């Protein structure tokens, strides 16, 4: 597809023989299933290249093929992978081992599973250092490296087990172990997607700094177009294992030529903050009615290991009817507990919650049940929120059956109607969740929450488990429904760019408290608290100032 020379065309200073990594006609299959087809790209010495794609695009498989870490027996790679003039795929395992680790380093996706859980960090780091065959002083070398990657207390990290450290710290450890032998190339497979947003930026900055200081080339695997554009000078866009487009960041990012790259660009929230403006517009000024949701001074603490832990601390906010209020924060900020209180799944220690004029707190089970007819929840993960033994028809119709709404035929009609409103056809009615894609599942979950025609829907990170293009579809459905039915949303997210795209008002949560709130534009354009500013700054915006969406 994309010929090799296209990548190097706009790099006049880089002659072709300066390529550190050259991949040509690479195809990878697992058993009979071919996941990567005829992929070619090149990475010059000291350069950085990003492989971009959604799940199933084969981007991680390519990384593993380069490192020769494909699953034994099933994974098979064909084609040419040339590192520093050596054909990686045809080397013997023994010869290749001298490259792996020393010349090519690997930074994995999820740091919490990437260190052996039953050994201390130090013992594993020492093992990595010992593999370099450099005499003595492994411990000192490791501690020095830990300090270099910004770990505050290297000795404590050294003596800890992996589960005792945070994800950000573990990723620093792993990056440290990767740069320890001063490799020529680092392959980073989604190095930040398992981390909180503010930490993501710091880890990416660390990688960039190390790359510059130590003159290391970077092969970055990511699903995030904005991150890729920020951190790499060459982009390769993949879909279903085939290269869609490749070239210098400036050209691919600002004037994509392939349809897929254009769509991908349009679907990234950070790059298109105003994409849904037409669906979001409200008559200016308040309607004068009572807010749909009023949360006042709510506090909730849990007892963990005999200690009281305040999960939600004096939280108050209101949501006007027909608008979207976003709760934003990193993991552990108390946003999930807040919505559980809102739904009456937990009782607050103090404070009141009113939905559509009805008090949620202090209600009996039966009273809560009637309130919930107007108050629905869509869960974060559609893979766990749908009973795998039920069909779509039963799943969506469950609440109608429970509340005995209408006749059997009316119920069936409303199920169909709800599925239709989220863009799913009748052909899925008899399927079980296992036979649906992630996006379809989340649409089923959405249909389930719509079928009772509620006023308020609480959305708990409804798209965080999905690819951006799927996310864009769901967001569009959500906003159309809001415009059509006047629904009120409470939208929980850690993704500020997405919040900016679809919410009207926002509350920023940090350690159980609301640190800042107000209209989305105000909070984002002029953050008053340092924490909010850090969050806003961590939104990757890609190269240059590309604003405005692609219609």
């Amino acid at each position, binding site marked *: 597809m994309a010929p090799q020379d296209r990548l190097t065309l706009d790099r006049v200073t880089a002659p072709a023989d300066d390529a550190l990594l050259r991949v040509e006609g690479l195809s990878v299959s697992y058993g009979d299933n071919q996941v990567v087809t005829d992929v070619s790209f090149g990475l010059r010495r000291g350069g950085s290249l990003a492989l971009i794609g959604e799940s199933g695009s084969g981007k991680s498989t390519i990384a593993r093929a380069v490192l020769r870490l494909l699953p034994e027996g099933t994974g098979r790679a064909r084609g040419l992978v040339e590192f520093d003039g050596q054909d990686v795929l045809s080397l013997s395992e023994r010869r290749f081992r001298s490259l792996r680790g020393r010349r090519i380093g690997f930074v994995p996706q999820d740091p919490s599973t990437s260190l052996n859980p039953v050994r201390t960090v130090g013992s594993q780091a020492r093992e990595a250092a010992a593999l370099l065959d450099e005499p003595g002083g492994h411990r000192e070398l490791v501690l020095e490296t830990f300090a270099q990657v910004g770990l505050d207390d290297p000795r404590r990290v050294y003596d800890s087990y992996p589960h005792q450290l945070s994800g950000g710290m573990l990723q620093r450890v792993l990056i440290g172990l990767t740069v320890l032998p001063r490799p020529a190339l680092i392959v980073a497979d989604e190095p930040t997607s398992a981390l909180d947003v503010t930490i993501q930026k710091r880890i990416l900055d660390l990688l960039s700094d190390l790359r510059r200081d130590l003159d290391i080339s970077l092969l970055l695997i990511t699903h995030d177009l904005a991150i890729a554009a920020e951190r790499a000078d060459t982009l390769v866009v993949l879909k279903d294992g085939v290269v869609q487009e490749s070239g210098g960041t400036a050209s691919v990012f600002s004037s994509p030529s392939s349809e897929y790259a254009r769509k991908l660009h349009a679907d990234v929230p950070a790059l298109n903050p105003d994409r849904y403006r037409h669906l979001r517009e409200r008559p200016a000024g308040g309607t004068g009615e009572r807010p749909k949701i009023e949360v006042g001074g709510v506090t909730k603490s849990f007892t963990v290991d005999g200690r009281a832990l305040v999960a939600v601390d004096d939280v108050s906010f209101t949501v006007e009817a027909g608008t979207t209020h976003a709760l934003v924060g990193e993991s552990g900020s108390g946003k999930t507990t807040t919505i559980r209180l809102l739904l009456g799944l937990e009782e607050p220690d103090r404070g009141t919650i009113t939905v559509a004029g009805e008090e949620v707190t202090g209600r009996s089970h039966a009273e809560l049940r009637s309130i919930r007819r107007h108050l629905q929840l869509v869960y974060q993960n559609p893979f766990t929120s749908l*009973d795998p033994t039920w069909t779509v028809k039963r799943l969506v119709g469950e609440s109608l059956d429970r509340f005995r709404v209408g006749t059997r035929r009316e119920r069936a009609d409303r199920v169909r109607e709800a599925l239709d409103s989220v863009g799913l056809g009748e052909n899925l009615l008899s399927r079980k969740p296992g036979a649906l894609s992630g996006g379809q599942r989340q*649409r089923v979950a959405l249909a389930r929450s719509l079928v009772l025609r509620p006023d308020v829907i609480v959305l708990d990170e409804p798209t965080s488990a999905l690819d951006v293009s799927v996310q864009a579809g769901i967001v569009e459905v959500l906003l159309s429904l809001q415009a059509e039915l006047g629904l009120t949303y409470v939208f929980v997210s850690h993704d500020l760019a997405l919040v900016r795209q679809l919410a009207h008002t926002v509350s920023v949560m940090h350690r159980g408290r609301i640190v800042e709130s107000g209209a989305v534009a105000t909070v984002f354009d002029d953050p008053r608290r340092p924490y909010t500013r850090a969050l806003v700054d961590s939104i990757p915006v890609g190269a240059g100032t590309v604003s405005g969406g692609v219609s």
Partner: protein
Amino acid sequence: MSVSALSRARPVIRRGQASRFPPTVVASFAVLALVLLWSLVPTLFTGQDPARGVPADKFLGPSTAHWFGTDHLGRDLFARVVHGTASSVTSALVAVGIGVLVGGLIGLIAGFVGGWVDAVLARLVDVLLAIPSFLLAVVVVSSLGFETINAAIATGVSAVGVFARVMRSEVLKTRRAVFVEASYLQGGSRWHILVRHVLPNASRSVLMLAVLQFGLSILIIAGLAFLGYGDPPPASDWGLLISIGKDYPLAQWLVYAPALVTIATVLSVNRISRWLRKTD
């Protein structure tokens, strides 16, 4: 951009249809089908009377006339094995049935009701698990009397603990599942959630355990029969046949023929159980 254009269904079944039934699984089902037929219509497979001996023909080795040879009374061993199948297999089914019903119920109640009910039932299950199952079966059968049906009941009692534990942990796991909370938010009552969500999801692993336990029960009941705690001769349970055969070391087929039949049956059951676990 249209909404439906984005919802692209991914291929769900990765492997081809052909590889869903590996040859060993097919063979296992064939063995079990044969065993089932032996126990339902034994006369279809052998015309010989399992109880009638021809003294002149005693201790004949396996041949076309007597596939498994003959025993010390000149009885056809193949006929005895085939006619002993019904009792060997059905008693294992009875044992599994007791385990599934009693153990499943205990586990379901303990897991779903929780609180002190769970605490009490958990100790009872601990006791059942603490007594070695074969020893427990021996004690129960000695108390009930030496008959094959009692051996089956005893084996079932010894399996109650395992079923209760698996059912309880599955119920607890399912109860905490997000989709159960979702159903609660859809207005589902406690009973609705138990019957429609928890039970179907929890029973999956219990059924897989039942298959595995079926094979184990055949072995335990054969062991009890071997020790003489089942029906006495002229019954021809597989374990009993092996027990009798061991007294004639010069006629080794008397041990090996029923032993191979037992092994083939249990091996098939275990293979199917493993296959079920994998395809889940």
